[in-house]
């Protein structure tokens, strides 16, 4: 980004070192030294063009998400959601009159590279990724490159709590893990009663996210009940077999089973679990991301007392009588992609909307096209609506939205599961106040 020296810069600086070298005739050398001069002169400032006239050309936006592989169960939802948001925004005359052009790329294991390529392509804003590890690896780049990224997911709790304390350009739309893990514990207690929970078990995917969820859930359930953990298994991410973990749970017969398995792992766990009678061996199964695989379940998979979160969005809640946007989004998703929109659909939708509404607001304020800093500053404490309700982007750059939990039941009408008895938790109930670490907060419950 900063490597490209704008013509205006040269004009502004007049007869700089580079032009001088060129004039001296050594243009090849001059170019060769230009990299060095970059090194010597420090970072070029490109953020000072705020308030410029609103350009004619469309806004260039990039989204990285899992477009293939097993994780595309989530990734494609985010893509569909982002595309729906972009198309709605463009239908409504764009952001400050500018249309959004969205490029989508497979995030693979190249998050940094994808972000950098987007920046090099001159993207005005970037969205994604899904992977929390990938999100971490990008943050340094984002802060250094100065092109805003609104993460769709990448929801490791500690991220904006502890480790990235003063971000400028990196934002996260989706609720962080603590909310869904705590919601899961609360739901189990509400359904069974604290006195009836003596044992619980964990099955979480074998990577940072899974361990994060397990620690948070365990801390929450032990704060609410006297239960002991009787089993904890970590099947590999994208596993092709969970029989061992299912067998262990069936033999331990815990009162509560918590799982943060998602995508194909969720269907595999429930399908294999049904085969070995896992739902019968437990009183309740709570899984914050189980509903994310809504499009892939069969009726047989979800037999039993299985409760799932739907992070910050469940299209059927509140009821359509009171709140139609959820139903409308459902219909849009059905029409465009023949898919049941899940919380990851909202990840994409919300990330785009967060940025677009903030950019619009900023352009109103500055009376022209805002700079990255100006949009970033507007995004802090920015509140906005989506069909999921009202969201606030806290100044920690973590967005807060309501968290949903409900019982999965089969619906022949939509050919997939619905959530029944949905309970909604205000972010203040299920996450620590900004500035407090989740574990400290849970300990003092």
């Amino acid at each position, binding site marked *: 980004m900063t490597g490209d020296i704008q013509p205006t810069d040269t004009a502004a600086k007049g007869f700089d070192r580079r032009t001088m070298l060129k004039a001296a005739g050594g243009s090849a050398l001059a170019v060769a030294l230009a990299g060095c001069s970059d090194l010597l002169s420090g970072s070029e400032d490109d953020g000072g063009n705020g308030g410029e006239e609103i350009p004619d050309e469309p806004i260039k936006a990039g989204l990285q998400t899992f477009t293939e592989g097993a994780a595309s169960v989530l990734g494609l939802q985010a893509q569909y959601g982002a595309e729906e948001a972009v198309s709605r925004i463009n239908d409504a005359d764009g952001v400050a009159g500018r249309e959004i052009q969205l490029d989508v790329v497979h995030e693979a294991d190249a998050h940094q590279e994808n972000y950098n390529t987007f920046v090099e392509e001159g993207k005005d804003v970037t969205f994604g990724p899904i992977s929390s590890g990938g999100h971490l690896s990008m943050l340094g780049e984002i802060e250094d490159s100065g092109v805003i990224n609104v993460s769709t997911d990448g929801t490791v709790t500690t991220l904006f709590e502890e480790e990235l304390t003063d971000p400028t350009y990196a934002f996260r739309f989706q609720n962080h893990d603590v909310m869904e893990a705590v919601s899961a514990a609360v739901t189990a207690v509400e359904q069974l009663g604290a006195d009836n929970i003596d044992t619980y078990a964990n099955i979480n995917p074998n990577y940072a996210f899974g361990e994060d969820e397990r620690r948070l859930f365990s801390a929450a359930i032990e704060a609410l009940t006297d239960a002991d953990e009787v089993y904890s298994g970590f099947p590999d991410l994208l596993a092709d077999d969970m029989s*061992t973990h299912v067998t*262990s749970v*069936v033999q331990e017969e815990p009162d509560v089973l918590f799982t943060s398995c998602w995508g194909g792992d969720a*269907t595999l766990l429930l399908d294999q679990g*049904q*085969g070995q009678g896992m739902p019968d061996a437990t009183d309740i199964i709570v899984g914050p991301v189980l509903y994310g695989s809504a499009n892939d379940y069969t*009726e*047989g998979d979800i037999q039993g007392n299985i409760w799932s979160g739907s992070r910050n969005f469940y299209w059927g809640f509140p009821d359509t009588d009171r709140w139609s946007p959820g139903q409308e989004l459902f219909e849009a998703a059905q029409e465009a992609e023949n898919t049941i929109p899940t919380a990851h659909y909202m990840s994409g939708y919300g990330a785009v909307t967060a940025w677009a509404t903030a950019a619009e607001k900023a352009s109103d304020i500055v009376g022209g096209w805002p700079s990255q800093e100006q949009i970033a500053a507007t995004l802090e404490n920015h509140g906005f609506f989506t069909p999921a309700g009202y969201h606030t982007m806290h100044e920690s750059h973590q967005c807060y939205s309501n968290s949903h939990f409900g019982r999965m039941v089969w619906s022949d009408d939509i050919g997939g599961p619905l959530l029944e008895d949905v309970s909604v938790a205000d972010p203040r109930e299920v996450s620590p106040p900004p500035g407090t670490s989740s574990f400290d907060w849970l300990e003092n419950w």
Partner: protein
Amino acid sequence: MAVAAADLLLQSVTDPSGWVIHTLNGLFRGFILFMIASGLTIIFGVLGILNLAHGEFYALGALLFVSLASYLTGLVVAPTDPASLLLFGVLVLVAILVAAAVLIPVSAVIETVLVRKIYDRDEVYQLLLTFGLLLVLIDLMKISWGPGTHRPDAVGGESLNQVVDVIPMEEWFGFSYSSYAIFSIFAGAVVFLALLWFFDRTKTGRIVRATAINREMATAIGVSSDRVFTLVFAMGGFFAGLAGAIHSGSAIAASADMGGDALVLSFVVIVVGGLGSIRGAFVGAILVGVLSRWMTWQQPALELAAPFALMVVVLLVRPEGLYGTWGEIE
């Protein structure tokens, strides 16, 4: 460690079903692995080629099965009584066999058109070609089936294996276990015995073995080594496809990129068993399958490393593998 071992022992005495089920889980996995690895090992034994694209045959079998099974089981209503359950089972079996059978022409054509051209080339080119093939096949599968994961359509609200799993194992064996997995173990055993019979008892099998041992001599006595190679490659493709089809009938979801892990684990299996040995692939697969399930159960941290550590030990102590005969089919 000693405490853990004592714990285990105690547990196995007080509650043997844990051991039985975890071992069955391992056997299921082992037999799937065996079906993939058997093809890899005979292709290596006869053709001298380590086919990196072999895992893609497995993936292709899985995806084909998903489509076929969805179509076939869609033709009937959900089974309600033993007769309709039997019909359903037959349809699933047909889907499995047809999916695997499609791999025969696919792999035969790949062999004739591409792989045959490089038998005499340096092994690095064989690796490069089959790796290129791997990438091409993955992408072709993504184009055909879409990038995500796929399961057979539900029948009467249940997934395919749930329908099959109504067979009451608990009544027969005293504990609950997936009858689909039992069927898969049985199928794997049949494949193993069939392969042994083929190579020991049939004329074609002996010709293949003769070709493996000495190509020139086989040619001299009038055997078309080209045909033998095509046959072997197609057999390998068939068994990998069979593994994929059977596996995707269990709870797993099929996807275009499921071949990689299968391939790497199959390496372990054939090295442990001895390159080119079918008995070796069998023992190796069961070892790796059961070991990995036991590890997942007792020492989950070692699950990933365990098969490779086993492979390292075997290679260092007995490089030719447990049943190694180096390039001959046994």
